[in-house]
């Protein structure tokens, strides 16, 4: 039965924090950094009264290792940060992938490299989909494009993390974090007792085998086996949870590809497509690892050109090109440093791309 869901007008940060609680997270470890401070602040306010734990770590390095510890103890656990802080967490992420542990990490991306600024950017795409420190492991990466999706994806991320025993990264940005929209709240899920089969923790003698959480494998084959298991997880995830949304013309000449806040701009462009005189469709991934390779490949055989819009010098576009494999031209509209293209600029670029591809405009 459909439970009555409360509709509230909240910021992306609050929606994310409440999403974590709704997903059953009662252990949060974090460190302040703009533009996501409202998340730890929300957790500090709301977790202790419901028996949860909020702890401000001394650094992001400590925070991610607290997450590592809590996850190995079998808890649903999360941390949130923004670009420079996520960079510092890479060590812990790698250890968790090596130890095959679930956790939810939210990155409200800001401008970089370096200290950068606190404005919107999408320049951590590689960090999220390739990164997770050293080694072969990768984060399952979700890309919400609204306050509602930040809430839903964060809540749902715990199930995914548990299912694949893998880190799930929710990739937001400075605008999604601070903008406010209506959000239907998912009822808060009870905390599950931390008794996962792999977890360390108290148990009766003889009740189960001793669990060891470890990412050190001196034996070559044992180390390789971890990597093979991870690859199998990613293959299963590709088949089971790859997700995207499409919007616009059923017979497009140009396909727009964008995720997150850029997908909002592109949605605006599709709504004004007649101004460009080009039949337009938007494909926006909701997961970028696993990547919606199949639908992008299929469209590449039917459209005259694709245009990728992203707030980085060109990271996401590489995955699109890998999916397209040269079947159609893939152009890029990029801005950086906190700048965003306007919808008119997207439309102008669409016209240019269409003309280059020989579409009569």
């Amino acid at each position, binding site marked *: 039965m459909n439970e009555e869901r409360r509709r509230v007008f909240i910021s992306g940060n609050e929606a994310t924090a409440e999403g974590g609680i709704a997903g059953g997270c009662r252990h949060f470890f974090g460190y302040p950094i703009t533009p996501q401070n409202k998340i730890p602040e929300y957790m*500090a306010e709301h977790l202790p009264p419901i028996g949860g734990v909020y702890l401000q770590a*001394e650094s992001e390095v400590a925070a991610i290792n607290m997450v590592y510890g809590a996850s190995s103890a079998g808890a649903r656990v999360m941390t949130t940060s923004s670009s420079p802080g996520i960079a510092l967490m890479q060590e812990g992420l790698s250890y968790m992938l090596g130890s095959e542990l679930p956790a939810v990490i939210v990155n409200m991306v800001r401008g970089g490299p370096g200290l950068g600024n606190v404005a919107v950017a999408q320049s951590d795409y590689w960090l999220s989909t390739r990164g997770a420190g050293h080694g072969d492991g990768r984060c399952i990466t979700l890309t919400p494009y609204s306050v509602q999706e930040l809430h839903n994806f964060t809540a749902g991320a715990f199930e995914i993390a548990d299912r694949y025993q893998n880190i799930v990264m929710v990739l937001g940005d400075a605008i999604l974090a601070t903008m406010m929209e209506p959000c239907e709240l998912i009822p808060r899920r009870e905390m599950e007792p931390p008794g996962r089969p792999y977890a360390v923790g108290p148990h009766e003698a003889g009740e189960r085998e001793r669990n060891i959480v470890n990412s050190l494998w001196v034996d070559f084959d044992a180390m390789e086996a971890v990597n093979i298991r991870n690859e199998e997880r990613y293959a299963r995830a590709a088949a089971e949870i790859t997700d995207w949304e499409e919007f616009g013309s059923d017979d497009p000449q140009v396909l727009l590809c964008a995720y997150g806040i850029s997908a909002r701009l592109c949605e605006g462009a599709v709504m004004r497509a007649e101004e460009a005189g080009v039949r337009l469709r938007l494909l926006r991934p909701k997961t970028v690892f696993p990547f919606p390779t199949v639908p992008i490949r299929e469209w590449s055989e039917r459209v005259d050109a694709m245009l990728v819009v992203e707030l980085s010098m060109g990271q996401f576009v590489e995955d699109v090109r890998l999916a397209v494999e040269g079947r159609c031209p893939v152009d890029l509209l990029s801005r950086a440093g906190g700048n965003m293209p306007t919808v008119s600029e997207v439309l102008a670029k669409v016209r240019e791309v269409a003309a280059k591809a020989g579409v009569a405009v």
Partner: protein
Amino acid sequence: MQAAHGRGPAVATGIKRVHPDSVVFTYQGDGDLASIGMAEIVHAASRGENFTVIFINNAVFGMTQGQMAPTTLIGQKTTTSPRGRTAAEAGWPIRICELLDTLEGPAYIAREALTTPPRIRSAKKSIRRAFEAQLAGEGFGIVELLSTCPTWWGMDPLEAIRHIDDTMVEHYPLRVFRDRPAAHDRPAGQQEEAGSDA
């Protein structure tokens, strides 16, 4: 030169080791120095690096909008300790000068408060002395300055000044903890005579 959050003392070490005759100092908040940068400050002090640290302690993360810092007092309300800091949840406020005073490395350690004119004059003297220690090659100097943050303390500026003088100094006593050349005879950052390490 802008360093990553907390890494000032490491970056300053790099600069000073390249330019031992240049005057080098770091300017760090309590979140910066006492939270994320705790390892860097302890090791720079322990090595007796010949630079000066100006440490602004306002008991809060100001820049990021008022979160709890390691120096936040017990009971103090911040945006991440909305019911007031408790030792059970978040431990006790860290006294940096006292902590560094356990090390051999530092040449000068003082805590001052930026409140009344006499206290500000005293702070000025300490800062001068810390830089003189650097110029004389005596080694690491740190001056902690208790500073107000009316915005995130939820006080007007006068109340905030009184809060330092009435409350903060109880936990953070104003003192010159150390005023002597570093324990080792060669200040960090200066090369031995050429050939001595052959």
